């Protein structure tokens, strides 16, 4: 635990908590403009959250404590990842927690908790959403870990900070086939894990096509606010991991205020750009049928596996 790491951890938690709704706002705005609409402005998610926090929380009949705790756990796992991963600074606040596997497992933990809460309501939609979410998560896991494998083989460690430092030292590796294939695989996993098109439609109103949304149909008021905040933070964290692993430039390596400010700005810019690109891409896409999703994930798994083997085939 260094001063740099702790400063980075605090900045990251603040920036991601405050900025994730703005990221969602930017993405919705990009989408709206491409669809020819005016859009509500990038601050709309924050307005929604402010309103939801002042609304009445509702406990549906027959649900247990788990239903009430799940949003908190979902938020907590995401905030923990936001705090420990090296996004703004190249050292982590809690090094032993910034392992890539640990980060993936923490995020999976949040997903599983929310799925349990959805089952806990006992509604058909809750169970359906939980079943689909867990299926997608189970299938995305191999891709995620094999891609991690590809990245960490050359860094010699699965620590996020180690991978980032290794990339900073040798920028050429990003442009190597292994790096590019791993990036493609991780991007697809990000799309699947954060419930974006073409895996899940975040804007749907039709229960039968929902995945994430079907799980949270029973949440209201502050509970819903927590889930929404955590979901947008998850997206920010996934995009942040993607950005930091493949384009770590601008990250703060000293605890000087200027370096920290530059690191924060670079992180925000990278994540914002990635988010805008994702939203723009979504305009051109339709949602896949649920049983076509395994094809997508198998393809990304193949890319991840090729990333590992390519680091063997090829000299760079």
């Amino acid at each position, binding site marked *: 635990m260094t001063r740099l790491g702790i400063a980075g951890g605090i900045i990251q938690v603040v920036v991601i908590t405050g900025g994730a709704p703005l990221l969602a706002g930017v993405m919705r705005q990009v989408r709206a403009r491409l669809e020819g609409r005016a859009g509500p402005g990038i601050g709309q998610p924050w307005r929604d959250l402010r309103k939801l926090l002042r609304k009445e929380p509702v406990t549906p009949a027959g649900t247990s404590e788990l239903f009430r705790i799940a949003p908190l756990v979902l938020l907590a796992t995401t905030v923990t990842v936001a705090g420990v991963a090296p996004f703004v600074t190249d050292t982590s606040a809690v090094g032993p927690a910034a392992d890539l596997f640990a980060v993936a497992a923490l995020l999976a933990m949040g997903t599983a908790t929310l799925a349990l809460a959805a089952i806990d309501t006992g509604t058909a939609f809750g169970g359906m959403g939980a079943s689909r979410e867990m299926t997608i998560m189970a299938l995305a896991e191999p891709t995620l870990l094999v891609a991690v494998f590809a990245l960490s083989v050359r860094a010699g460690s699965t620590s996020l900070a180690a991978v980032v430092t290794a990339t900073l030292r040798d920028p*050429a590796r990003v*442009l*190597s*086939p*292994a790096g*590019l*294939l791993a990036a*493609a695989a991780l991007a697809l996993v990000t799309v699947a894990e954060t419930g974006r098109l073409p895996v899940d439609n975040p804007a749907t109103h039709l229960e039968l096509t929902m995945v994430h949304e079907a799980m949270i149909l029973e949440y209201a008021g502050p509970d819903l606010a927590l889930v929404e905040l955590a979901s947008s933070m998850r997206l920010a964290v996934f995009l942040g991991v993607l950005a930091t692993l493949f384009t770590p430039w601008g990250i703060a390596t000293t605890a000087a205020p200027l370096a920290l400010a530059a690191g924060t700005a670079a992180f925000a810019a990278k994540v914002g750009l990635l988010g805008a690109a994702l939203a723009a891409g979504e305009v051109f896409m339709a949602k896949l049928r649920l049983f076509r999703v*395994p*094809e997508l994930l*198998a*393809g990304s*798994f*193949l*890319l991840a*596996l*090729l990333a590992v*083997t*390519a680091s*063997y*085939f*090829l*000299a*760079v």
Partner: protein
Amino acid sequence: MSAVMSGVMTSTVYVQLLDLACGALLATAVVIVWRRRLAAIIRTFAVQGAALAALAGVLAVHARDVRLGVIAAGVLALRAVVFPWLLGRALAASGPAPGERETRPLVNVTASLLAVAVLTLIAYAVSRPLTALAPSPAADAIPVGIAVTLAGFFVLVTRRRAVSQLAGFLLMDNGITATGLLTTASAGLLTEAGVSLDVLLAAVVLRALAGRMRDAFGDTDLDDLRELRD
């Protein structure tokens, strides 16, 4: 010109460009297995042809070999322009709709992708002795060529539409060419030309065949041809 280029091309840049070209070759092969829309497959095929040409070009500049440069140009013309164009025409001639898909491959797409993963690992394992013979950046990339060849063979075996089978055949051919380029960097121009001519012939014949079949049966699902025998 050539001197300037090779001056620019230090060994790391050479290796990096070579690897990028090979990576693109591999990735496009994956996409060809992945996609169902025949039009998209043909487009990807063009990209792969360009990657192959880039590979030959990089090797040519590195070896300062004019013949290889000519091969690169030929590959670019044939693989990236002529073949995709021919395939596109075959598709337009055989299919009723432009957005035609490979609807029912014999092995479903998920299993195909996993099979290609296994084939890649096999390619890597079997080519070890070959690469160990004369270790060089180009030789290290031989598994890419073999993997693309195997993937092409796989597509050829498991797809039903005539056009996607043709794509599999061409994929295989790209793989063989890549392997040839990587093993003997200065491979005979004549061999390459001969192979390409063969393929051209095959494409023309198949295109004609597809047209005839469409006239006769209205569709080119090769499985339906079994009815002729039964």
